[in-house]
């Protein structure tokens, strides 16, 4: 003897089946939601990566556009723009006397200058991604300058300008960021801007390399 009437048992079974199907559906939906969330996160990361690189372009292109449209008076304005950023950083470095000693230490060991490009050659694009992530976490001058140098080597001058500015914000006393900035500007056909930037830097700091570059412009 069954505890339930047979037809009632069938109904109970069907009810149970429905419940099970619902559970399965909920599980599936849960999995789909998780997958969708994971995909969205992935997309966000991708776009974040893409936007990290283009952002300097917007800054620099804004500058260059003004350069192009207004032939001579405008460069001064644009220079002022760059000056503004650099002056801001300059305020943060009142230790003008210390700077030469730091810079002198670097310049004699010219190997160091060569080391950075060597590393960049090795890292390539994959390395760039790592550096971008690293910069996001640390916001360090070293990483910013590496990225700027990478773009300079890759002849992506506008990005190089953006990252040079970024690096100089972190440590305006370092010559390297100004040099990259100047080189990139020169490559973009704006040697005046390059000269102006280097002369601003050299007013407060000493750098043989920066001086040599200024002379060569």
């Amino acid at each position, binding site marked *: 003897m069954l505890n339930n009437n047979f037809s009632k048992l069938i109904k109970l079974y069907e009810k*149970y089946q429905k*419940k099970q199907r619902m559970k399965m559906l909920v599980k599936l939906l849960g999995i789909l939601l998780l997958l969708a969330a994971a995909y969205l996160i992935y997309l966000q990361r991708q776009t974040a990566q893409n936007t990290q690189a283009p952002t300097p372009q917007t800054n620099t292109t804004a500058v260059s556009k003004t350069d192009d449209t207004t032939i001579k008076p405008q460069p001064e304005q644009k220079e002022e723009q760059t000056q503004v950023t650099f002056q801001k950083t300059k305020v943060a470095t009142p230790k003008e006397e210390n700077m030469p000693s730091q810079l002198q230490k670097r310049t004699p060991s010219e190997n160091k200058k060569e080391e950075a490009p060597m590393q960049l050659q090795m890292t390539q694009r994959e390395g760039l991604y790592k550096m971008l992530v690293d910069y996001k976490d640390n916001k360090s001058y070293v990483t910013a300058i590496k990225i700027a140098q990478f773009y300079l080597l890759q002849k992506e001058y506008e990005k190089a300008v953006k990252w040079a500015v970024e690096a100089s914000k972190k440590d305006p006393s370092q010559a390297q960021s100004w040099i990259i900035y100047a080189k990139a500007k020169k490559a973009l056909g704006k040697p005046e801007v390059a000269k102006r930037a280097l002369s601003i830097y050299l007013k407060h700091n000493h750098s043989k390399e920066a001086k040599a570059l200024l002379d060569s412009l």
Partner: protein
Amino acid sequence: MNQFAEAKKLFYDDFDLSGYFDSLTFEYAKKQLIDVMKTHEVPLVFLLGSPGTGKSFLLNYINQKVSSVKVAKYFTHPYFDEKEFLETLLSLAGKNIEHNEYSTEQLISRLQRAFGDLEYTVFIDEAQLLTEDQVELIRILSDQKIFQFVLAMHKQEGNYILSKDHFKSRTTKKIELEGLTDKEIGRYIESRLLANNFSDIASMFKRSHVKFIKDYSNGNFRTTKKLVKTVLEILNIANREGYKKYSKLNNTTLTMAAIDTGLIDVK
């Protein structure tokens, strides 16, 4: 009447000893119990296991089938009062005793004269129902080596009683019965059906069905029997009344059996 109706009778939950099944846990417990009964050294034996693991069956089996040990009395339930219990035991010595003819102390001293040296064993099933006083009386009788007692009880309660101070210091033996493995369940169903000429039905039980039964019965012998009995009853009704969809042994009919036995709650 189709074959299923007859086959289901093999899985009724009773103490029919023809349903003996030599599972590993059962055989091990049986051997331990027989050994301890033969040695007459341990006055108190605790036979522990979850409900439906075969404790009662084991006591019944030893009581009826094992002649090498001496079972004085098998109490299926500890319903007795103190005096009634002692009078029952004393009557085993062949003496006609009127109820309340002797005091408790007199009954104990008479039992001492009639029995001794743990020669005879008393089985008490469902011993988790014993009151503190009854347990104490059993302890006194076993301490005086009048009888050896085997107390079959649920695992939790047994462990609780064993942890009490007046048992901690005494010589006791604990024998445990565990659940069946899925292989054992498969072998049990098959052997039971084959032994009764239901080879067609036996061949219906595939490994996946046995696994289903194991998962829902959790290896419990009684639940296993209940589930098999119910599924056979479902097949019997479906075949008899023309429910084709439910006329074969499969996950559907097994699920229905689990629902009917309350192992699956549909509410």
